C-alpha cells in the first residue's frame, strides 16, 4: 500500500503549529522551538511542503545592517486545507497519534 504523503508525526506536528495562526508568517527557528523538531528534521519537511506549493516562503528584509535577511513561512490555502484534513484524519484514529499532537488537538 503506498504511503499517504504528509502524514508523518513530525509533519502533523508542524501542521498543527502552523494552523494555530494560519495567516501569520513564521520563522524557522520559532517553528523548530514550538514543534521541538531539530533543524535537520524541520527543514526537509518545509522544503517538501514548499515544493508542492503547500507552503509559501518569503524573505524578511534585514532590520539591522549586518544581519542576514530571515526566511518566513506560512501555509498556502491548499496547504491549510490539507493540513486540516490530515489532522482531522489522525484525530479520528487517536491510537496512533503522538502525545504532542494529541495534547494540541485535544
Amino acid at each position: 500500500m503506498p504511503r499517504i504523503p504528509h502524514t508523518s508525526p513530525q509533519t502533523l506536528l508542524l501542521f498543527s503549529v502552523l494552523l494555530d495562526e494560519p495567516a501569520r508568517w513564521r520563522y524557522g527557528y520559532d517553528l523548530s522551538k514550538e514543534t521541538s523538531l531539530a533543524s535537520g528534521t524541520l527543514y526537509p519537511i518545509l522544503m517538501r511542503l514548499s515544493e508542492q506549493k503547500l507552503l509559501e516562503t518569503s524573505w524578511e528584509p534585514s532590520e539591522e545592517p549586518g544581519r542576514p535577511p530571515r526566511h518566513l513561512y506560512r501555509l498556502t490555502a491548499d496547504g491549510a486545507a490539507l493540513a486540516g484534513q490530515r489532522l482531522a484524519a489522525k484525530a479520528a484514529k487517536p491510537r496512533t497519534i503522538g502525545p504532542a499532537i494529541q495534547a494540541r488537538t485535544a
Partner: protein
Amino acid sequence: MRRLAYAVLVLAVRGRRERGGDWGEAILAEFAETTGDREAVRWAAGGLRVMWHERRARRRELPRIVRIRRRVVLIVLIGLAVGLVVNRFVLTVGYVDNGSMETTYLIGDRYVVDLVAFRLTGVRRGDVVELNRPGTDRLLIKRVIGLPGDTVECRGGGVWLNGAPLDEPYLSPDPEYTRMEDCTATTVPPHQLYLLGDHRIVSEDSRKYGPVDEGALHGRVLLRL
C-alpha cells in the same frame, strides 16, 4: 564552540560560493536565534544534514555522463586505497633473488605471499615460507621441514624426520641439487621452525643457523606467478 559550529555550517551552505541555496541561507540566518552552545551545535548539525540531502538531490540532476565519470573516479580511488592496504597487510608479491630454492623457484621468479591467514592456520611441513634472513632485513623463502618438537637430521644424502627418511617429492631428481652433507640431529624448540632450501648444496638454512623463530616469518608462499 558557537563560532566553530557557525563556520562549519557556512562552509556547508556556501562552499566556495558567495551565497548558498535559499534553504541553506535560511538555516544560516536562523543560527543567530539559537541560545547557548548546545542549541547552536544542534542547529548546525541539523543544517548539515539538510545540506547533505540537498547536495545529493542536486547530484541526481547532473548529466548522466558527469555522474558516471564521478563514480568511476571514486571507484578507482577506493580501489587504489583498498589495493594498497591489501598489498601491505593481506597478500603481496615477492621476488626470488637467489638460487637456494632451485629447482622449485628459480632466480627471477615471482610468487604470491599470504601475510595473514598463515598466522591463524599455522604452517605445515612442506610449506614454503617467506622470512627475514636471521640478522638481516632481507626477505627470502625456505621450506618448512621440522615443526616444534620434531627431530631433524641429514644422513646419507637425505633428510630424516623423527627417525624416518623424509619423502621429498618437491626436490629436483638431479643429484646436483640434492646431494647434501650430513648434519647433526636437531630437535626443534617450541615456537621455532626447521627450514631448508630445496637446493641443498647452495642453500644457507637451518643447517647453518639452526631453527628459526616463528616471529621471523613474514608470510606463506601460495603460488608461483
